[in-house]
């Protein structure tokens, strides 16, 4: 098994799907010739391999990029378009939120939009809030969109393959920090189903639900807490929509304690949704109050000490776990 970063894993998935299906094409700013001349980047080398017909460098025009995907997918093509950074999603959002998500419903189920929008997310680069702003809760609030946020390169590969083959619009969010975290990636052609969570660590005392980069934060916190005698279970959602409620409820019923950890800001964040599901469906299993560890309600600041303050750390998460371990 080879070791690779998430960008390389995404690259492999794109390469394989483009080879398998001539309807798959990619488009976006710098997906062909990029200012990053690095094999760690997701679309590296695809222009050379597949040519200009299937690897489309676009002008700086996010609304047109997203619209291109909507229109072409309706014709039965399988566009995989890139919005460079999560905050620029706002420029593409009309096409995604008002069109990709709604046009099938408006057609009474007659048309379909099998497109994928890939976006880079995550703080930690000192780039500031117009480049670092995790907006997954926004897209989750638009029925008709599936939302995938993998935590490992292997899963990114398997999930992106499924996303490309899915007949619905899929928002696929890659934390850029994970491009530089090397983990094993199998060379097989496994498809990982969209909508299935994965238990990354089994435990009996507390459930931590996380996704994307925060899964690694959760695993680090779990290690830390193991030293203090707390047995933490880490559930990696992998997909936010559709939500694998079963996986969350099964774990919470076992442990009786729940902490949700996300990098996105707190108010209106997806942790609130998970808490609501658990209140509705497993309230009586809870031995302690629900806790969430999230970014504070501020834009992501550029300065290193401020940015570090923003990011949920294993220590902060361990603090929340400790707090509810003492209850119930």
């Amino acid at each position, binding site marked *: 098994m080879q070791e690779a970063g998430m960008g390389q894993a995404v690259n492999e998935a794109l390469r394989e799907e483009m080879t398998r299906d001539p309807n798959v094409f990619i488009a976006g*700013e*710098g997906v062909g*010739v*990029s*200012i*990053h*001349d690095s094999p760690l980047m997701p679309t590296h080398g695809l222009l050379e391999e597949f040519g200009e017909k299937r690897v489309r*460098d676009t*002008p*700086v*025009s*996010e*609304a*047109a990029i997203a619209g291109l995907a909507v229109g072409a997918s309706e014709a039965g093509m399988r566009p995989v378009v890139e919005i460079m950074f999560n*905050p*620029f999603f706002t*420029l593409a959002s009309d096409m995604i939120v008002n069109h990709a998500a709604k046009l099938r419903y408006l057609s009474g189920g007659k048309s379909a939009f099998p497109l994928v929008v890939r976006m880079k997310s995550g703080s930690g*680069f*000192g*780039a*500031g809030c*117009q*480049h670092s702003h995790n907006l997954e809760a926004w897209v989750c609030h638009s029925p008709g969109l599936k939302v995938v946020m993998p935590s490992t390169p292997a899963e990114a590969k398997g999930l992106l393959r499924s996303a490309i083959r899915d007949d619905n619009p899929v928002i696929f969010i890659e934390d850029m920090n994970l491009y530089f975290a090397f983990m094993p990636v199998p060379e097989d052609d496994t498809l990982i189903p969209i909508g299935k969570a994965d238990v990354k660590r089994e435990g009996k005392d507390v459930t931590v639900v996380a996704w994307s980069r925060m899964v690694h934060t959760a695993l680090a916190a779990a290690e830390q807490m193991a030293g203090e005698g707390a047995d933490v279970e880490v559930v990696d959602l992998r997909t936010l929509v559709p939500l694998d409620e079963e996986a969350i409820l099964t774990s919470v019923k076992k442990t009786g304690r729940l902490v949700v950890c996300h990098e996105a800001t707190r108010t209106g964040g997806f942790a609130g949704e998970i808490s609501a599901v658990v209140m509705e469906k497993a309230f009586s299993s809870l031995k302690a109050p629900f806790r969430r560890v999230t970014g*504070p*309600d*501020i*834009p992501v*600041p*550029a*300065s*290193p*000490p*401020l*940015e*570090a*303050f*923003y990011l949920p750390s294993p220590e902060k998460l361990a603090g929340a776990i400790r707090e509810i371990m003492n209850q119930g």
Partner: protein
Amino acid sequence: MEISGEKKMEMLRSMILSRRFSEKLTELCKIEGKIPGMVILSTGQEAVGSGVCAALAPRDVIITNHRSHNHLLAKGADPNLLMAEIYCKKTGYNKGKSGTLHIAVPEINAPCTTTVVGGGIPIAVGRAFAQQYRGEDAVTVCFFGDGAADEGSFHESLNLAALWQLPVVFVCENNVYAGAQRFEEHTRSKSIADRGAGYGMPGFVVDGNNAASVFNAAREARQLALSGGGPTLIEYRTYRCRGHGEQDPQHYQPKDEIAAWMEKCPIPRLSGDMIAEGILTQDQLGRLEDEIRDSVEAAVGFAESSPYPEPEDALEDVFA
């Protein structure tokens, strides 16, 4: 139109300051972990910001983008506070909240800097609307790249600004590249200025490496806006001598192209003219260079010796 010796001196000083400032940052960016974030410079493009801002009054407003340092210095930003913000220090213009990419300096009428490409264009329309509404004797200048002219915001904003005859000057800094894309790879328009006609506003292509031409075009557009004649679109042709940002290896930029444009450097062009006209001596130029070099070193010293903000400072400044 005749340009006074004083204005020429102002432009020269501002261009040299901007160049030394950028060169220093290029140097600092090579030191791992020194400057957070993506440092984006205007090396070679200084005549645009320096020429345009020399044509403005302090009360005029500029809205700038990710490539802002030259514009801000030319508008009168303090190199110490600018450098400290680029270092993400507490003493910087924005207390480290911004870093290099979106430095706002309302005190010099540069209130909204955005790194969202095309984001500044509608904001400039709003700022100019306020000037018109209140009958102010001032204009708004919006700096953006050729790539930004492909965003929908460009179209909507120019149409509205022309419709309402707002006192705004749209300054497109065409530096041949938008990211890794050459101008002719991102549009079939022969020029961005051509598009002005479609909105019913004048559009001009101007040599962006000639400070005097830059100044004259901006002065005229400002005059038109002040007299109620509405917006102008000026496209300054220049060249991005560095990569998109300092981490960009420029693998797609031909070496001889860079060298050819270095030959057209706007700084010796202006200083050479001034010496020929007898309004500048080699000696004076040397002293100016030294003085500016010292001030850039002082800015670095100020930034280096400044503290970082405290972590909890992150919670401040969200709401007014």
